């Protein structure tokens, strides 16, 4: 394992330290317990928006703290959800009296830890609502799983909920629009290589030189099945089809298309996948009216990509287009 780190056990804290210095105008990094808040503090009258989860997915979530998106982010250890004692101060620091929405990716650990923190915050008299992101169509949402996972679609939920909060929506309304994004967003990912968790020191799974994993999550877990490596067009089809089918996209609909890198794949390849994905959607007479291509919800240095599609309407387009001013998303 070769990583630009000092003590692997301190990797998250060291990285956050650098992040805080590089973006001191945007964020304040707290180390005990670890959480990240907006440098400017809560905006009076605005609903606070908080998210968090295991580290290793950078720029998610801390990279999205700032005007028009998150008020606070709570990183856990690598691939491990944060604890309630980290989440609680993030919620408290984001509350200006208008209440706080927590955006939680659907993993048992994240759900349990956020649940506890939200209970504690509510016990203190704070108004807190929660929304669960579960966009990964690789996992069936059935009795036989912990439910679909939250993956790259989280960016869309955080952006749009943040924009709704910024325009002054009430907690109920921010939660409602976030729920609407959750209902309309689906993702599917592929890994070309595994990733290596710093304190583990070995790849999270073993993959042959000519094999890829389809339906991976963002925690280095293996995917749903392993297939031989093929051209980008074929791989992209295996990502787009289940997403579009699950959303039951109809001709004439318009969507946001997000091609997300897993961390180790060059931007140039992500644009190849984007081009193919767009063709496939256009074959279905679906219009791609908004796009995002880059590394937003990563899995350390994993090579691979995911395709996320969000069904859009006028309101969601307006909220997506609204100004955002964070380390990783800016317009």
């Amino acid at each position: 394992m070769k990583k630009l780190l000092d003590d692997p056990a301190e990797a998250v804290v060291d990285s956050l330290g650098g992040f805080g210095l590089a973006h001191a105008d945007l964020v304040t990094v707290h180390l005990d317990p670890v959480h990240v808040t907006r440098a400017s503090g809560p905006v009076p009258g605005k609903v606070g928006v908080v998210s968090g989860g295991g580290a290793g997915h950078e720029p998610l979530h801390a990279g999205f703290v700032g005007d028009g998106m998150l008020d606070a982010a709570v990183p856990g250890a690598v691939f491990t959800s944060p604890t309630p004692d980290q989440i609680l101060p993030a919620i408290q620091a984001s509350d200006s009296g208008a209440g706080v929405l927590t955006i939680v990716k659907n993993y048992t650990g994240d759900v349990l830890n956020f649940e506890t923190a939200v209970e504690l915050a509510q016990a203190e008299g704070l108004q807190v609502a929660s929304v669960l992101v579960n966009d990964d169509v690789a996992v069936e949402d059935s009795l036989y799983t912990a439910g679909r996972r939250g993956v790259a679609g989280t960016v869309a939920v955080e952006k749009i909920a943040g924009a709704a909060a910024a325009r002054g929506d009430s907690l109920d309304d921010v939660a409602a629009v976030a729920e609407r994004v959750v209902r309309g967003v689906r993702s599917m990912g592929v890994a070309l290589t595994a990733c290596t968790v710093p304190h583990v020191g070995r790849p999270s799974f073993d993959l042959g030189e000519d094999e890829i994993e389809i339906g991976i999550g963002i925690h280095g877990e293996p995917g749903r099945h392993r297939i031989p490596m093929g051209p980008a067009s074929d791989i992209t089809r295996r990502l787009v089809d289940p997403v579009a089918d699950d959303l039951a996209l109809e001709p004439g609909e318009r969507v946001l298309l997000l091609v997300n890198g897993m961390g180790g794949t060059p931007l140039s390849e992500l644009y190849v996948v984007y081009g193919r994905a767009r063709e496939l959607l256009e074959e279905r007479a679906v219009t791609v009216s908004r796009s995002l291509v880059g590394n937003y919800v990563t899995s350390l240095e994993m090579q691979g990509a995911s395709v996320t599609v969000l069904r859009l309407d006028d309101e969601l387009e307006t909220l997506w287009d609204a100004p955002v001013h964070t380390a990783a998303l800016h317009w």
Partner: protein
Amino acid sequence: MGLDVAWAERWVRRTAERIAEAKGELTELDRQIGDGDHGENLHRGFQAVVAKLDESGGAERTEVGDVLMVVATTLMSKVGGASGPLYGTAFLRAAKRSARREVDGSGVVVLLEAALEGVTSRGKAEVGEKTMVDALAPAVEAATAASDAGQDPAGVLRAAAEAAEAGAEATVPLVATKGRASYLGERSAGHMDPGSRSSAIILRAAADTAQDVTGTTAP
């Protein structure tokens, strides 16, 4: 002879040692069907528990539950992941049911039942879903039988540990339907669930320290 606060503290410290030794094994199990952090998570948590016990001194702890409460709050705030809140709740509920100076055989059963109830109330898993419940549920059953048969606390814990170990082994062929391993579907079969293994380790540490403390020899 019952188990007291000294036993509880020895149990917890022994657990921290055993988890440290098994860190690699647990990580490897979790790497196979999860995300490879279970060993690190519990190691971080139990090291913090030991540090907390060290720094606060033993004077103010008089009941078994006092020690278990330190474990509960520390795991809750240091572990994260799925296992943090689950073990945290397990120790919390167990602490509440062992607010006494001595725990006898049936007291051990009450403690274990409370722990299991804590896990299932938070995690909603049933037996057969390939989780720590598959170690804890048979442990409670075996402990109950041993207690009913009049065994002492060390014997009851030994029965629980053995059943938990067997339960962990028995998770190997199962297809997971809870936790991260459920994402793998059929591919989760053929591997032991890491949480069931760590549960067995914790219970084995309980049995071994009970034996040390009470001086009972193995049957």
